[in-house]
């Protein structure tokens, strides 16, 4: 005969946290796709570091060389909230030609994995698939994963403090990157 065991509080908290983090990441993606970029910006901490390194083809074992350094090298993105805010202002001018007419973006987020919790801060990994369709037949896509640091926030539940975006590309195949990941 089966007996229902009591779920301990710690496990329950963990499940709730997983749920809340997932909802946050999904909301983030939805705001981007619904072109609510300024609302997306509100989910970012003031001291955000938003980093997408380039990735090299390297010899097995030369792992230190694979990602470009955000201390010394050139990256696709390596910036804070102020620069992201500038990008959003630019997209929202209506005369930013690679985004005029506006694209149809769809971000799909999955594989959300809690990596660690320290006080208010939560490390979480996830994957994204981003599809862009614009004009008649222009299609671009980006696939990758993210290593995020979130911080609990009374207003927006969380704020994004750090994001490393690991893009599965070497040469950037799309001509322009006009969305966020």
């Amino acid at each position, binding site marked *: 005969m089966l007996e229902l065991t009591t779920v301990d509080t710690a496990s329950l908290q963990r499940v709730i946290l997983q749920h809340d983090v997932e909802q946050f990441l999904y909301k983030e993606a939805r705001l981007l796709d619904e072109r609510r970029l300024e609302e997306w910006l509100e989910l970012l901490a003031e001291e955000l570091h938003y980093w997408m390194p380039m990735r090299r083809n390297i010899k097995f074992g030369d792992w230190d060389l694979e990602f470009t350094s955000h201390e010394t090298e050139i990256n696709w993105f390596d910036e804070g909230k102020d*620069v992201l805010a500038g990008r959003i202002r*630019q997209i929202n001018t209506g005369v930013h030609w690679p985004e005029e007419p506006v694209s149809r973006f769809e971000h799909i987020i999955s594989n959300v994995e809690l990596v660690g919790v320290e006080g208010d801060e939560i490390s979480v990994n996830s994957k994204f698939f981003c599809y862009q369709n614009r004009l008649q037949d222009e299609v671009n896509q980006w696939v990758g994963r993210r290593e995020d640091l979130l911080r609990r926030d009374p207003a927006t539940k969380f704020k994004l403090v750090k994001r490393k975006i690991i893009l599965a590309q070497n040469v950037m195949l799309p001509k322009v990157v006009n969305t966020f990941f």
Partner: protein
Amino acid sequence: MVTILRARGDRSIRSFIDYERGTISRELYVHPDIFEQEMEQIFQRCWLFLGHESQIPNPGDFIVSRMGTEEVIVVRDRKDKQIRAFLNSCRHRGMKVCRYDQGNNLVFTCPFHAWTYDTAGKLVGVGYGNHPEAYGDTRPGDQWGLAQVAQFKNFHGSLWATWDPKAPSFEDYLGPFTASLRHCLQSSDGEDGGLEMFTPFQRHRLPTNWKVPGFTSVTDGTHAAMTHRSAAAAGLHEDRGQGKAKPGTPFPREMYAIGDHNLGHGGQCTFYNQPGVPDYTDEWFEPGVDDYFRETAGRKAQLYANRVLAPHGWGGGHFAIFPCVMVDSWRIRWYHPHETGMVERWTLCGVDKNAPKHVKNAVRHYVQRYNGPTGFFESDDMENWNYVYPASRGVRARKLDYFFANGLGHGKYDDRLPGVVVNGAYTEEAQRARFSRWLAFMEAKSWDDLYPVNTSKNHRIW
């Protein structure tokens, strides 16, 4: 002759350019036969940019670069420490010998049958080399080393090569632009070769003909206000770090668009009318950066107390080296054709190699947010450069000509840059000059027809 369409007959290359009207046939951008001829006539002959010595400081260090549609391995030899460049294609069966973007190697061993080349490109071993039932006396000798570029030049740290043994020296190829390139490669205090490049190459694809950005983006003075309207509207010119310039003491100078119709180079240009260096007027957001650059500008001013600045770089503007290398003092941007409608754009950005870390960081962040597919400014360019191509290649569209007549007939020679035509800053002089040289290359049987330049035969100002 290029066979355009049977119904329209063969055309001479010369018939694509109309000097009187200042027009160029759109076939030049969209026709695959022309593209194939360009790869042979231009990219096999010209001096092409490979990268910078700071990318491979140690013996055995290598990067994979490109020359036109093909990859080359650029490697610093372990023995003599010299840098050489080789086609990335195994001499046995043509496998790509090196599939890494960079690294450090003892030897390059082909993954197919283990032909092995040292860092000077010499074949030093083959798989089954000592097997009694393999090569024996048919074992490949020294002539089976990696295919090496015909000429190689390290010019103040920048690396260049040509496949053509008959090409003139790199300095002769540059002609009156030699001083400009040298100036662009100086650090901000005027030290020769004083730059290092941020690694790695920034590389991205752009679906268009290589000449759209390669020939017509430097100098394209009339594009900025419209193309980059969004950056201005969003206030991003003030985000540039270097953009918030304060007024300085006026320095006597004149700005032009220039084109060398003999050699094909050209771009923006600043003629300084007296020795010395203009005041440092930039204003960086990051603390301490202006202090550094003011100090180096002071040292440069001493160096140039009795010398007139070269007309490009460090505030003078950018220029393009034929066929498609855009140079100024903080970045080199160049184009590798893939096919008629696809090009790959590469960028390297420089910084004073002796600058302190906070200065390097400020410059690095600036170039990251400015350039390429994730850059504020160049993202706008990409859209226009891209859609020129599909909108030009329709059977009706390609029968039209492009307008290249902005400033036509108003150019003049100027003693300050012998042989170069000087015109209004917002004219298309530099673009016309590239097409003058393009035509010379497309008609030439060899470098004998191209250098020394034969003005009466190949060229005319238009």
